[in-house]
């Protein structure tokens, strides 16, 4: 219908009041603390009726100077900083950082550690995607779809808790491996999870995937073409939803990912529905990877031989001079680090999470820069929502999964 046409009542032919775009421009603050931003960042929308004409973003509300902090902390004390980037999948951030330092040290890591890491990282990816996809449900008006997966996510958090004692900001693992092996409780809980999760997941998925209302609501909302997504530096599920199959796990396999058989799902239109579908399929694939890694978990040590960074056993510290020295050096942050610079990246929940590390041989990095996928692709948001309705802007924002911690570092 032409927006300038008058609306005619079908039964009596009377002209109804015009309620289309009226040319009156209003400014709306979408954020910083808006229920639909799911984090602290602001969009100043210029709207004409419901239609968005322009959007100006303000970020940095929770900037915590991580890169400056990292220049004064010993390497093992940087792990807790990484927790607070994408806090929906902190284990990926932690383990990515450990792998970066190991790469700098040229440390040899046992196969068992790789597989354990894969299990933990894929659990984290499932938890991350569960949150994002259930929030798309909430923002389209389906609150039930938020509660169903949260009971499952709780089980993943219990698994983290079993490994490291923490749930959200995990600080999981150590440079060199893990502080302890999987405990018997962890084995029981993981087996239980692998058995019950697929059913629970499909039950929840059934609420949304082919739901007419959900599909009508999300199809075509906030779409971006493959070309534009590439120009804007998209990575991760958002890029794959636009149809490009880039995945760090495949292009630059780390932590023995090349041992596993899994599929990289891609979308077609790069809209909210495709992003949802790509994440849902990634959850299934992550589950496949966990099963493969768990069933083929190699025997061996749960940490590598990295004496400069991996704390020795407590009983050795009391009885062995060398162990005591290493213990002291690690605690005081006096470990020897080679001079060098590396870039290492892992496939985080939101895409390529990179660590650019320059070491001058000192106790802390000379420079550490994080490639935060959110920060890079969030700049495309105005382009994605211009011309659409405010309600589409809300679901677009939830479907690109902008995590304020990662956005602002």
């Amino acid at each position, binding site marked *: 219908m032409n927006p300038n046409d008058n609306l005619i009542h079908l039964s009596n032919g009377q002209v109804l009041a015009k309620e289309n775009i009226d040319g009156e421009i209003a400014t709306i603050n979408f954020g910083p603390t808006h229920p639909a931003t799911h984090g602290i960042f602001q969009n100043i929308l210029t709207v004409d009726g419901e239609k968005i004409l322009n959007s100006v973003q303000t*970020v940095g509300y929770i900037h915590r100077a991580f890169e400056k902090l990292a220049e004064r902390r010993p390497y093992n004390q940087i792990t807790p900083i990484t927790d607070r980037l994408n806090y929906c999948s902190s284990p990926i951030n932690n383990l990515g950082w450990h792998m970066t330092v190991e790469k700098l040290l040229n440390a040899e890591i046992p196969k068992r550690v790789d597989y354990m890491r894969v299990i933990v990282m894929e659990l984290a990816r499932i938890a991350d995607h569960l949150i994002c996809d259930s929030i798309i449900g909430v923002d389209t008006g389906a609150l039930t779809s938020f509660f169903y997966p949260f009971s499952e996510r709780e089980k993943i958090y219990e698994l983290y808790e079993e490994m490291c004692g923490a749930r959200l900001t995990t600080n999981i693992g150590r440079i060199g491996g893990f502080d302890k092996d999987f405990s018997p409780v962890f084995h029981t809980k993981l087996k239980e999870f692998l058995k019950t999760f697929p059913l629970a997941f499909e039950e929840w998925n059934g609420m949304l995937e082919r739901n007419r209302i959900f599909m009508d609501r999300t199809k075509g909302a906030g779409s971006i073409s493959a070309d534009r997504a590439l120009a804007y530096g998209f990575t991760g599920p958002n890029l794959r939803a636009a149809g490009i199959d880039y995945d760090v796990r495949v292009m630059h396999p780390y932590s023995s990912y090349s041992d596993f058989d899994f599929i990289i799902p891609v979308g077609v239109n790069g809209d909210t529905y495709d992003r949802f579908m790509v994440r849902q399929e990634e959850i299934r694939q992550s589950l496949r990877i966990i099963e493969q890694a768990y069933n083929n978990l190699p025997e061996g040590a749960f940490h590598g031989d990295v004496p400069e960074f991996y704390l020795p056993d407590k009983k050795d510290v009391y009885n062995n001079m060398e162990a005591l020295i290493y213990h002291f050096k690690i605690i*005081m942050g006096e470990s020897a680090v080679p001079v060098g610079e590396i870039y290492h990246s892992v496939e985080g929940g939101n895409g390529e999470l990179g660590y650019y590390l320059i070491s001058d041989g000192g106790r802390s990095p000379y420079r550490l820069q994080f490639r935060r996928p959110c920060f890079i692709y*969030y700049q495309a948001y105005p382009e994605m929502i211009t011309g659409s309705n405010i309600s589409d802007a809300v679901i677009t924002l939830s479907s690109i999964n902008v995590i304020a911690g990662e956005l602002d570092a």
Partner: protein
Amino acid sequence: MQKMTNSSLSERLHSLFERRILASEELYDCLVIEVAAPDVFDIIQELKSESQLSFNFLTLIGGVHYPESTGQELCVVYHMHSWKHALRLRIKTYLSAENPRIQSITPLFDCANWMERETYDFFGIQFDNHPNLTRILNMDEMDYFPMLKQHPLEDATREDKDDRFFGR
């Protein structure tokens, strides 16, 4: 198609850019080249459009501060990625602290916009022709560039913490 390695990439780059490459080395698994600041835009443009190389993806832009190297205090690092060859390339260029200016690469990559703003915000590097070079993560009123090494992380007036006791 023949997959490129770092050494064949290095040869190819040297034949393409010849003397515009000031230095090159392989650090861990990545080739690093150093170029002069005025050449950066052209080189990245050629790397992107050259069909055999096709460095189609800009991974990261960042700054580094080396206060001791006079005249070359600031470094801008571009991380490029060729998906065709699964190869990364790091391009470095050095700027003086008095006049840290460089051409913006936003016409080539839209994602460079915020990365350059962040680099400006933390290091004070000016990107010419940038559409909106303002602070991004820090507050607008800030009057210094916090990632420069002369700004200590902790309050220098504090007396209760002695660095000697923390191994610093």
